[in-house]
């Protein structure tokens, strides 16, 4: 008998009394650990930035990355609009907005890869030096999280099209939204620390 105790609402009475949903709580706790994970990578980057003075030689293409940041901000906007749409039961609009999010995500990744290629041409590679290592690892892991987010969006899109996600059951969209917005927040911090602050 595979033990799959059906979870009823009354199991979570203590949490609901505090105004908490167990899936959102799980997501926020996961975000807490992700904050610390990126914290480790950012601390390494900033340690070297302020002890070795980055980037010594190359000047980063701030305008291109600025546009890339706008793309990611837009994708946050489309995700939160998609959530409103599904809650109003407008399946079509939900699917369209989620598709737009996926495209914006891919656009961001392309912009990122373009910038990486440009840096590689200038000789700044993952193994070229301390700047290359910490920069590419930090932005690389953020890009990885965006890619995972895009895949997750595609899965959510199919679940929406299949009808499992609707006006009543849409917590999965909100959870995906939390993840996506968190990745967007990480990018805002990275954009400021790497590209803007000199």
């Amino acid at each position, binding site marked *: *008998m*595979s*033990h*799959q*105790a059906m*979870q009823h609402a*009354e*199991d*979570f*009475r*203590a*949490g609901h009394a*505090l105004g*908490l949903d*167990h899936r959102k*709580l*799980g997501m926020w*706790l*996961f975000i*807490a*650990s*992700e904050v*610390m*994970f*990126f*914290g*480790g*990578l950012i*601390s*390494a980057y900033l*340690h*070297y930035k302020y*002890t*070795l003075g980055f980037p010594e030689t190359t000047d980063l293409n701030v305008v291109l990355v600025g546009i890339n940041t706008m793309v990611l901000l837009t994708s946050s906007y489309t995700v939160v609009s998609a959530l409103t749409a599904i809650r109003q039961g407008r399946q079509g609009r939900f699917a369209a907005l989620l598709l737009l999010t996926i495209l914006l995500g891919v656009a961001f990744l392309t912009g990122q890869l373009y910038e990486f290629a440009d840096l590689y041409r200038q000789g700044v590679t*993952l*193994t070229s*030096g*301390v700047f*290359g*290592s*910490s920069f590419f*690892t930090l932005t690389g*892991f953020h890009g990885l999280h965006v890619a995972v987010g895009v895949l997750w969006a595609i899965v959510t899109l199919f679940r929406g099209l299949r009808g499992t996600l609707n006006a009543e059951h849409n917590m999965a969209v909100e959870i995906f939204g939390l993840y996506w917005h968190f990745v967007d927040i990480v990018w805002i911090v990275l954009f400021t620390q790497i590209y803007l602050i000199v």
Partner: protein
Amino acid sequence: MTTASASVSWRRYFWWNTDHKVIGVQYIVTSFFFFILGGALAGLVRAELASPATDLLDGATYNQVMTNHGTLMIFLWVLPVLAGFGNYLIPLMIGARDMVFPRLNALSYWMIPPAGMLMIASFFAGGAEAGWTAYVPLSIGGPPGQTLWALSVMLLGISAIFGAINFLATVIMMRAPGLSIWRLPLFVWGMIATSTLILTATPVLTSGLIMVALDRVVGTHFFTVTSGGDPVLWQNLFWFYSHPAVYIMILPAMGIISEIFPVFARKPIFGYRMIAMSSMAIAILGLTVWAHHMFTSGMDPRLRVPYMVSSMVIAVPTGIKIFSWLATIWNGKLRLTTPMLFALGFISMFLIGGLTGIFLAAIPVDLHVHDTYFVVAHLHFVLFGGSVSAVYAGLYYWFPKITGRMYDEKIGRTHFALNFIGTNLAYLPMFIAGLMGMPRRVAAYDASFTSYNQWATLGALILAASTLPFLYNAVLSWARGPKAAANPWQALTLEWQTSSPPPPENFPEIPTATGDPYDYGEPSPAAEPAAAPAAG
């Protein structure tokens, strides 16, 4: 609904199962296997150190044995076995049917065996030689085993993070009606504090290990000194996790002790709220003290003093706990069963560890004793004398609940006697060897330390011998021990209000907790003892 004593088939322990009780036992038994492996490596270390020269193991092999002893004992024994206790007991103690994310729970267990295999495999691929601390640049060079080692520790870290998310969410969401936070058993408080630390500290180690792995495999320059890499950065990333890790390993153990004392003294826990708040205080302070491991390193000398202050302040909540435990057993009716004996052993041995911790926090003394056998003695008194004694106490205390059978008291007491003598004999001489000038992690030492090391090796032999009665007792009693009652110790916490072993859904229906979980003893004047909380 299945009957309470469903036919327990052994097979379900070897396959994906989302019942928190099965996962709890899986964690405990798997980690015990790694405990024995780590113990065997400790035996090798002590055998080598019985004589001053490197006769049994040469320098490199000794470093591998010592490194894997430390890593196995921390990441594959103490952390998983405490996660096992947490998994088995938290749902039962808060009156829930299971953890809030059962599948995530099974996943975090099933990351342990592959990580363990990876760690063992690293041994044969020219194993990790840089100690469990894996300081760079030493851990950047060296044989490929070090990379497997780093991947294994990353996997174990991620498993611990998933576990922490599960524990915190379960305790917040699924407490039984009437179970306010001030009525939670103190073991649950210990797990809350531990899970907070795991959640916030482990990811930083994971990011550090990624940097080491990239440096080793891809050739990045995080820690390459010639191109500007900074070895002290790794020490920061490592110790930011690894000091909270020692509190992660002691807080649940303290929780177990707080559960055992009131039951066997038949007296309420003394200062419940102070103990609960001390757990949280230790957790929060624990996140601010990491650089006391780096007093002698290349860090900026002016920055050391704040770490000394915060490290010493942690002695206050720890002291509150020890004095509260003493006050709990004072004037009680002590039943000296095996769990109680181990709990008493915990206090006396953890005390030695705690006091020597203050020596290490004082910078001038630390500059002499850092990285010496004084530190080795301190950490073993806190971890072996502390956490492992508490784990043994917990294993005996909850043995009837988990297996439905009673363990043999006489064998349990011999196990305690051997363990207590062995621990003190093995680690007390190390204090003096360290003070007199014996550095840490050495395969050979100056002849003047021979006697201390020989006493320590004798103690280690006794410890090795002490695990045999435990194994015999555990296996035999689980198979053929006398049937245990639902509540053999007349305890008041919720896990004892259901059958032993509990049915898959834990409680016929979710109980309502009314009383305080430690409402033992007769209130004076001698009125009728407070009724146990109405079970359902």
